[in-house]
């Protein structure tokens, strides 16, 4: 892998620090000057954490030789085994750590060969040496220190920045010897921002309007328009649905249907109303415990009840009740705090200062719910598990008017609800439900921020207050990073779900902190944050990747070009349906069952429950947005999974972005794509007989720009060759057009429509079509 060196400048007021990219392999440190201060947080901790802490870190039970290297007191103290000290500040040669990491003797060197952790490379050794020489100063983990609003840096190119974000980005870029791309062409920019804000490509009308609006405010107007659409809330909801592991069935073997979708309607509405993020979290964590909590507030807590529930005969209820609580704890810590605490379920965390006791104190917040571990088998299944919220017609007309009701029957949703008497929480030995140890009370992670029991109640309300406190070092950072990832494809902290010691360091710490503090200072206003990002010059850059930039910065860490990513699974479906005119823009309501390959549910079912066979919907339900496709946990919708959608088995904060032959097969052969191709071909064929205008309109709708001369020629030739083929065999044309349940256009010239359908299907398969660029 390419050696890289880059500068990270001024973080939390610490002097400029030379940082070697984590990608560097086996290289020597090519420092531009030898005098930089080595930073514990940025240079040393990643090495020690990865190579040493597993045996010499926070986990007291696994600590070897009584030596602890994650805190200064442990590292400087006299060794319990052997002579001397592990780290002698100022004297690497007298530091046991240094001697061992540089040793070639397998019986002496560290890490030991048996650990399979690998030795430190030269540059890592160099850094450790320098750090010890400079006094081996320890620092608190960067992410556990509350962010402070950094000054907006001065930059030499004052023309380029459009807002503060650009100053931070440009400073880094200039430091790396890169310069920004030009602004993206209008059509690409519009497609990008429309996809990012609403999950849908721009309509023809929107494209025309933007193309012809030459005013400076044109882009800002489009952004405001998009932010005001209902589809904005849907787009934002998708990533939170992954965090919330939302699904339409209970999971486990019989996998019966459940009703959590009213919570999804709440979620979409919350984003559309621009509910501040602190309130958004408070309602979901403790809406039921607010004074005189209303049904909307209670409904929000369904967030924590979306996990799986077993209905397998013969399970041990307590085992599963504990399991569900573990899931809630994980969803909270990963989705909201960006920490992986689950290690501490069985033992003290090996890397982060989170003890097993800390874990169960966090777990205790969720442990007082009225839930039981088991309510019976699939034969007694109800659409929600206790405690439940019942939603009446009256509710749906008034307070909960955002709920898109399908019928008049009573709705039930699984929500949170506290027991009257406190259920004791025990530290569970090895994380096993039937091995209770010491009793603990509820408290949040002390290493992140003190949970002050004098001020905060030891229940979920207290947890919500702790979480949304402006002093909490993680909540805002994790959220702005998540939003950044939505737009740039990669977080400022790449490991979105791990801000702990083993997580990646922020590529631009000052920017992250500025965004986080600014976000909190402006009342956790999500739309404002989103607008800041999409109106920045950074976001608006062209996505072109020059050879030089690809070589210098293959992962675009310095953001010297715009984001270019294949769009998520749900949006691929949305794109196909919307450009063909088939999309049903209804918001919310129960999930739907569109086309799906035959026999999938039937092959995997236990034969019990109402979901043992797939009952495909009819009519307009076939054309809903991808986020409304029914998710049966044991057999999630295949076209979604093939495009890397979450299987919703547990909380996820990042999807992979793969490129596989199965994806090609979906775009080529999925009836959804073929039907959309057919319907659009028929509609355009009816409108015009001019080949060029037909091709141009198809292209403009689907690729969202005008075709080049070359493209037009290629497509015209292709169209004509298909025409001549179908003209020879008209029956074939008819056959090709008979795909999908949407009614055929009777008056259409079948030969022309079939040829155009082929062409349109080709456009849907273009890489550019399903990519924001």
């Amino acid at each position: 892998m390419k050696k890289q060196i880059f500068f990270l400048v001024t973080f939390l007021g610490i002097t400029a620090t030379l940082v070697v990219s984590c990608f560097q392999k086996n290289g020597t440190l090519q420092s531009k000057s030898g005098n930089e201060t080595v930073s514990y947080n940025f240079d040393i901790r990643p090495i020690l954490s990865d190579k040493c802490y597993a045996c010499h870190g926070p986990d007291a039970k696994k600590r070897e030789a009584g030596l602890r290297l994650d805190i200064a007191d442990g590292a400087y103290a006299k060794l319990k085994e052997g002579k001397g000290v592990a780290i002698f500040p100022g004297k690497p040669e007298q530091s046991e750590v240094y001697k061992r990491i540089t040793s070639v003797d397998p019986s002496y060197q560290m890490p030991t060969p048996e650990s399979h952790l690998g030795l430190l490379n030269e540059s890592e050794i160099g850094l450790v040496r320098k750090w010890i020489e400079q006094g081996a100063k320890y620092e608190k983990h960067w992410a556990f220190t509350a962010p402070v609003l950094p000054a907006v840096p001065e930059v030499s190119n004052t023309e380029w920045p459009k807002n503060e974000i650009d100053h931070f980005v440009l400073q880094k870029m200039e430091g790396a010897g890169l310069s920004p791309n030009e602004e993206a062409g209008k059509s690409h920019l519009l497609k990008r921002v429309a996809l990012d804000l609403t999950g849908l490509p721009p309509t023809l009308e929107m494209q025309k309007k933007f193309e012809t609006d030459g005013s400076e405010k044109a882009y800002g107007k489009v952004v405001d328009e998009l932010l005001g659409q209902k589809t904005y809330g849907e787009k934002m909801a998708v990533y939170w649905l992954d965090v919330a592991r939302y699904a339409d069935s209970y999971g486990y073997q019989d996998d019966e249907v459940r009703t959590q979708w009213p919570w999804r309607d709440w979620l979409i509405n919350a984003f559309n109303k621009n509910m501040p993020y602190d309130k958004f979290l408070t309602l979901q964590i403790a809406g039921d415990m607010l004074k005189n909590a209303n049904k909307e507030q209670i409904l929000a807590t369904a967030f924590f009840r979306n996990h799986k529930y077993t209905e397998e005969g013969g399970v041990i209820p307590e085992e599963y009740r504990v399991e569900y609580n573990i899931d809630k704890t994980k969803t909270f810590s990963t989705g909201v705090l960006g920490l992986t605490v689950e290690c501490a379920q069985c033992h003290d965390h090996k890397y982060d200062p989170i003890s097993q006791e800390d874990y169960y104190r966090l777990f205790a917040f969720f442990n007082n719910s009225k839930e039981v571990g088991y309510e019976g088998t699939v034969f007694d299944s109800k659409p929600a598990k206790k405690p439940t919220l019942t939603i009446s017609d009256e509710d749906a007309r008034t307070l909960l008017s955002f709920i898109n009701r399908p019928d008049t029957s009573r709705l039930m949703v699984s929500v949170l609800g506290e027991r009257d008497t406190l259920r004791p929480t025990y530290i569970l030995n090895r994380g096993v439900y039937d091995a209770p140890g010491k009793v603990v009370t509820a408290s949040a992670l002390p290493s992140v921020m003190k949970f002050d029991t004098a001020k905060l109640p030891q229940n979920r309300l207290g947890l919500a207050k702790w979480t949304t406190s402006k002093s909490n070092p993680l909540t805002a950072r994790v959220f702005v990073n998540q939003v950044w990832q939505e737009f740039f494809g990669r977080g400022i902290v790449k490991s979105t779900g791990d801000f702990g010691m083993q997580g990646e360091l922020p590529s631009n710490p000052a920017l992250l902190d500025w965004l986080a503090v600014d976000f909190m200072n402006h009342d956790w206003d999500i739309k404002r944050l989103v607008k800041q990002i999409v109106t920045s010059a950074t976001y608006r850059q062209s996505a072109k990747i020059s050879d030089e930039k690809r070589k210098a910065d293959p992962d675009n860490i310095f953001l010297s070009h715009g984001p270019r990513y294949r769009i998520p699974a749900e949006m691929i479906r949305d794109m196909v349906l919307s450009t063909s005119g088939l999309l049903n823009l209804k918001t919310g309501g129960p999930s739907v069952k569109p086309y799906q390959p035959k026999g999938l549910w039937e092959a995997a079912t236990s034969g019990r429950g109402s979901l043992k066979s797939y009952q495909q919907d009819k009519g307009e339900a076939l054309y809903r947005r991808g986020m409304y496709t029914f998710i049966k946990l044991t057999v999630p919708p295949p076209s979604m999974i093939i495009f890397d959608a979450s299987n919703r088995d547990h909380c996820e904060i990042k999807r992979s972005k793969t490129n596989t032959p199965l994806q090609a097969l979906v775009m080529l052969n999925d009836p959804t794509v073929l039907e959309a191709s057919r319907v659009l071909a028929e509609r355009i064929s009816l409108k015009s007989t001019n080949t060029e205008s037909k091709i141009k309109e198809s292209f403009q709708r689907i690729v969202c720009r005008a075709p080049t001369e070359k493209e037009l020629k290629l497509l015209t030739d292709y169209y004509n060759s298909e025409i001549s083929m179908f003209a020879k065999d008209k029956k074939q044309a008819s056959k090709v057009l008979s795909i999908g349940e949407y009614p055929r256009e009777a008056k259409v010239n079948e030969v022309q429509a079939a040829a155009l359908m082929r062409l349109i299907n080709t456009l849907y398969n273009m890489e550019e079509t399903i990519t924001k660029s």
Partner: protein
Amino acid sequence: MEKQVFDFGVNTTRRHFLSKLSLGVGSAALGSLLIPDLFKGGGGEGDVNEFMAGLPHFAPKAKRVIYLFQNGAPSQLDLFDYKPMLNKMHGQDLPESIRGGQRLTGMTANQAKFPLAGSIFNFKQNGKAGAWMSDLLPHMANIVDDLCIIKTLNTEAINHDPALTFFQTGAQVGNRPSFGSWLSYGLGSENQNLPGFCVLLSRGKGNGQGVYSKLWTNGFLDSVHQGVQFSSGENPVLYLNDPDGMDRTRRRKMLDNLAELNQGTYNEFGDPEITAKVQQYEMAFRMQTAVPEITDMSKEPESIVKMYGPECLVPGTYAANCLLARKLSEQGVRFIQLYHQGWDSHGGLPNEIKGQCLDVDQSSAALITDLKQRGLLDETLVIWGGEFGRTNYCQGTLTKDNYGRDHHPRAFTVLMAGGGIKPGIVYGETDEFGYNIVKDPVHVHDFHATILNQLGLDHEKLVYKHQGRRYRLTDVAGKLVKGIIA
């Protein structure tokens, strides 16, 4: 000047593509569906190179695995683990000293009694090792000298979902990568036209437990490592078939046009993902030929059909899947996972198990024999077994010739063949009640470690770093079962 990233036309593209793939096994993580070099990043933050150096770790004995999973848990006491004591004590209570505090499922926890149930089936000894097998498995009994019979598998889970998940991913809960995904990640694919990890489902008439797509999930590995489910329907692989009216020539024409359009985008943006996309379309095109060829049983000679049984010509049956597994393994598919449902006999076991054995006996044996006659058994590891065993005591009403058995995690039997595993041996012993292990226990982690070993992988070194932690299939445990390695 234009950047030429690929040649147009079928042959040149294909040649170019194949030359890209000719890195050979082990030199790179090819992945179940992966084009080398072109795939990077994705979801895992692990530095692949750091962990992938030097794979396989040592010379492999097996190149691939066929896992015949008997989903629902077959009764070891009615098939392999012969316990005349149970017949002697038929109807008497299981002594508390034997149960030794074993937790019970909620199905039998409230039973007042735990009456022992002797198997109604006849057992006899077979082969050089004198391995016991009941008369339910006559074909398997014939090939017993090729089998390694492990009587002492044990697991921690007592319910189907966690137990299955444990066998397939090394953990009872969580979204961990499945066994096949680990192999795809560690060893890649040997075939350019087929996925390296294929999943085949079938169902018997016995009490069924569903299967779940998370059993062949890639977990936190990139999704190129996920298992690809083959189905018996119109499309052997999802979305494989071209629609009506699209012949190969027209498809080729379309893909050539598509490639040219994508080339235009590449010229503008210079994004390597575009090149990768074009190549994935080429692999898809080749899969469209390769998969139907492999699922077509019509060219199999009569002798083979006779060997697997007539059901092997009925798509979607276990027998057909066994035959397909052989064909896939011949093509170098790394991990072929079968699931046959219907072994969960809580009641009416004698009747249910007869049906299940009829489904699987002949074709399981045929698969092993067939591999052997083709010289493939040495390099193919075949595994046969369920997610746990069944209790020696009866669930529900016990009569002279009818009984049910609950889940039993403490000791059960799994069979292995080929792949450098000792043939013709019986490994491990249970007590005279068939309840506890008295000699040579094999935990699921040990089992996994041993299978990886046969494939040339050190289970402690096959790791993937996810969210700051190094993960293994064997978690933090697993010891090689040296006694079964040839």
